[in-house]
C-alpha cells in the first residue's frame, strides 16, 4: 500500500470528481460531505508524503511499469511534497466557504474542484514534460469552468481573455516540448537534463529557443509583467472562494519555473546554464512596480487582493532570479505564506461582499461592517500580507532581503516600497469598509458566507513563524536539492521496475 501512496494525490481527486460528476443531479447535501471528505483524505495523503519526502530520498513511481526513461514517472521530492500540502490545506476552507451557499449558483462546483486538485497534484508530481502539459490542461479546463462559475458580465468578459490566452499558451507549450523532444529524443525531465548538459554545439540555439518558449508559457501562467494583464480582472471578478483557490494557480507557473528550469537549465547545464534568469529578474521587478501601482489604484477589496497577487509573483520570481540557495529558501517560504494568506483574504472579501449589500466590497461609502471578529481577521490578514512582524509575511520578506545583499539594492527599494504601498492600500480599505457609513443590516437575500474558513487559514501564518526553524531547515534542504539535482536524476533513471 505504502508504495502506491505516491499516485493517490492524482487518483483520489479523480475518483471523487468522477463520482461527483456522475451524480451531478444529486442533492448538494450529499455532494458537500463527499467533497469535504475527499479534501480531508487528500490532506492526510499529502502530509504522509511530506513526511516521507522530508527523509531526503527522492521517491519515484513508475506508471505501468515502463522503465524510465521510456515510461511516465511520478517523482516525489521535497518541493513537490511541499506544494501538495499547500494545495491540500487550501482546498478544505474553499470547500467549506462554497458549501455555505455559493455552490447553488451552478451545478458542478464540487466535481470541478476535485478535477482542479487532480490537475494541480499531477503537475506537482510528474517527472515527464509532456505529462506536465497534460496535467496543465486538466487544471486549466477545470479553472475555465470555475472562473465563470455563477455567471455575470464581468466574469464572462474576464474568462474570455483567460481562456484565449491560455489556449494560445498551450500551443506554445507543445511547440517547446516538441522542440526539446526533437533535439534530445526524450521527454523524461531527468533524462533530458543529462542530455541537455552534453548537447552538441549546433543544437544549443534551438534548445535555448525551446527553453525560452517554456519560460514564456510558465511566465504567462504565473502572470509575469507583459503576460500577466489577464490576472487582476480574472481574480477580482471570480466568486470569492474560487479566487481563493486560484491563489495556488499562479504559483503553479512559479513551481514549473523552479522545477523545469532548475532541472533542465540549472548551473550544471553547460552552455544553457542560467537561461532566462536575467530576463526574469528585470521583468519580475517590473511586475512589482506594476502591482504596487495597481494596489494603490484598486477600487475594491478583491481587486486590491488581485494586484497583491501580482506583487507576490514579482517578489517570488525576483527571488528565483537571484538564484542562490538562500534566495530560493526565502522565495519558497514566501510562496507558502502568500498562497495561504491571499486565499484567506479572498475568503474574507467574500464575507464583506455578502454583508455590505449593493456596495459589495467597493471602496465607497456604503454600509460599514460592525463585527469585531471580521475586523480582527482583516487586521491579521493585512498585517501578514503587508509584511509586518510578528506574522509570516515579515519572515518571508526578511529572508529575501537578506539573500539579496547590497549588490541588488534596487530589489531592496522595490520590495520595501511594495510593503509601504500595501500598508497604505490596506489601511484605506479597512477604514472604508469598517469605519465609514451606516452600520450594515444583515441581508436576507445575500448568499451567506461564513467566517470560519478564514479563521482556519489565518492561524497558519502564526504557525509558519512558530515552527519557523523546522520549516526553514526543510526549505533549505529543498533549495540545495534544487540547485544540484544530480540525486534526483540518479533516482529517476535508476528506478527499479517489475514490482517491489
Amino acid at each position, binding site marked *: 500500500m505504502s508504495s502506491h501512496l505516491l499516485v493517490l494525490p492524482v487518483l483520489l481527486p479523480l475518483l471523487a470528481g468522477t463520482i461527483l460528476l456522475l451524480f451531478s443531479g444529486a442533492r448538494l447535501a450529499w455532494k458537500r460531505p463527499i467533497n469535504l471528505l475527499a479534501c480531508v483524505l487528500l490532506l492526510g495523503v499529502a502530509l504522509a508524503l511530506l513526511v516521507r519526502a522530508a527523509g531526503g530520498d527522492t521517491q519515484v513511481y513508475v506508471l505501468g511499469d515502463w522503465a524510465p526513461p521510456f515510461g511516465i514517472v511520478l517523482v516525489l521530492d521535497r518541493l513537490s511534497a511541499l506544494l501538495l500540502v499547500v494545495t491540500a490545506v487550501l482546498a478544505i476552507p474553499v470547500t467549506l466557504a462554497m458549501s455555505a451557499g455559493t455552490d447553488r449558483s451552478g451545478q458542478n462546483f464540487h466535481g470541478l474542484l476535485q478535477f482542479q486538485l487532480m490537475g494541480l497534484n499531477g503537475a506537482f508530481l510528474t517527472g515527464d514534460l509532456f505529462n506536465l502539459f497534460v496535467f496543465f490542461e486538466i487544471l486549466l479546463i477545470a479553472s475555465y*469552468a470555475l472562473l465563470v462559475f455563477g455567471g*455575470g*458580465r464581468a466574469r464572462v*468578459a474576464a474568462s474570455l481573455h483567460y481562456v484565449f490566452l491560455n*489556449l494560445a499558451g*498551450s*500551443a506554445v507549450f507543445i511547440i517547446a516540448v*516538441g522542440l526539446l523532444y526533437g533535439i534530445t529524443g526524450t521527454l523524461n525531465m531527468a533524462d533530458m537534463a543529462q542530455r541537455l548538459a552534453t548537447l552538441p554545439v549546433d543544437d544549443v540555439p534551438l534548445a535555448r529557443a525551446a527553453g525560452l518558449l517554456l519560460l514564456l508559457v510558465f511566465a504567462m501562467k504565473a502572470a509575469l509583467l507583459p503576460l500577466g494583464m489577464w490576472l487582476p480582472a480574472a481574480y477580482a471578478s471570480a466568486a470569492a472562494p474560487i479566487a481563493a483557490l486560484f491563489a495556488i494557480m499562479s504559483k503553479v507557473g512559479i513551481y514549473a519555473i523552479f522545477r523545469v528550469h532548475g532541472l533542465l537549465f540549472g548551473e550544471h547545464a553547460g552552455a544553457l546554464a542560467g537561461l532566462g534568469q536575467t530576463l526574469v529578474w528585470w521583468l519580475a521587478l517590473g511586475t512589482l512596480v506594476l502591482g504596487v501601482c495597481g494596489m494603490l489604484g484598486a477600487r475594491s477589496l478583491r481587486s486590491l487582493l488581485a494586484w497583491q497577487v501580482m506583487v507576490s509573483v514579482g517578489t517570488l520570481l525576483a527571488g528565483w532570479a537571484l538564484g542562490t540557495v538562500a534566495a530560493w529558501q526565502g522565495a519558497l517560504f514566501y510562496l507558502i505564506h502568500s498562497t495561504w494568506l491571499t486565499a484567506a483574504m479572498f475568503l474574507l472579501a467574500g464575507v464583506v461582499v455578502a454583508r455590505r449589500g449593493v456596495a459589495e466590497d467597493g471602496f465607497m461609502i456604503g454600509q460599514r461592517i460592525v463585527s469585531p471578529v471580521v475586523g480582527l481577521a482583516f487586521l491579521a490578514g493585512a498585517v501578514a500580507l503587508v509584511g509586518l512582524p510578528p506574522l509570516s509575511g515579515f519572515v518571508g520578506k526578511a529572508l529575501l532581503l537578506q539573500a539579496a545583499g547590497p549588490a541588488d539594492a534596487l530589489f531592496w527599494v522595490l520590495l520595501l516600497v511594495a510593503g509601504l504601498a500595501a500598508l497604505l492600500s490596506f489601511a484605506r480599505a479597512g477604514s472604508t469598509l469598517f469605519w465609514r457609513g451606516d452600520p450594515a443590516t444583515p441581508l436576507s437575500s445575500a448568499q451567506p458566507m461564513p467566517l470560519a474558513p478564514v479563521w482556519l487559514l489565518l492561524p497558519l501564518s502564526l504557525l509558519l513563524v512558530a515552527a519557523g526553524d523546522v520549516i526553514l531547515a526543510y526549505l533549505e534542504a529543498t533549495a540545495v536539492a534544487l540547485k544540484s539535482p544530480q540525486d534526483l536524476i540518479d533516482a529517476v533513471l535508476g528506478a527499479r521496475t517489475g514490482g517491489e
Partner: protein
Amino acid sequence: MEALMAVCIGVLTACGVYLMLRARTFPVVMGLMLLGYAVNLFLFSMGRLATDAPAVIGRAESHADPLPQALVLTAIVIGFAMTAYVVILVIRARKTLNHDYVDDRVNERAHGAPEKSREGHS
C-alpha cells in the same frame, strides 16, 4: 516533403495568428483551431519525416518514431475538448455581453456605458 511540411505549418500558423489578432470571438476561435493544427503537424514532424516507415519495429528496414504520433493523438483530443468548451463560452459571452468583441471595453468606447446584461450584476 520537408519543404511542403514547413510551408504548411508556416501558412497555418500565419493564418491562425492573423485571425487571433482580429479580436472578435469567432475569428479568434478559428485562429486557435488553425494554430492547433499547425502545432500538431509540428509535433508530428519532430519525430523526423519518413515515407513507407511503419511505427512498429520489425515490420520494415526503417521505422518511424511512434512517440510523436502518440503525443499528437493526445494533443488532438485535448484540442478537441478545448475547442468544444471555447465555442460554448463564446456563445455564452455573445448572449451576456451583447457583442462579440474579445475586449469588453471596446464596446464601452463605441457605445458609451455598457448595456445592462440580462443576467443582472456580476
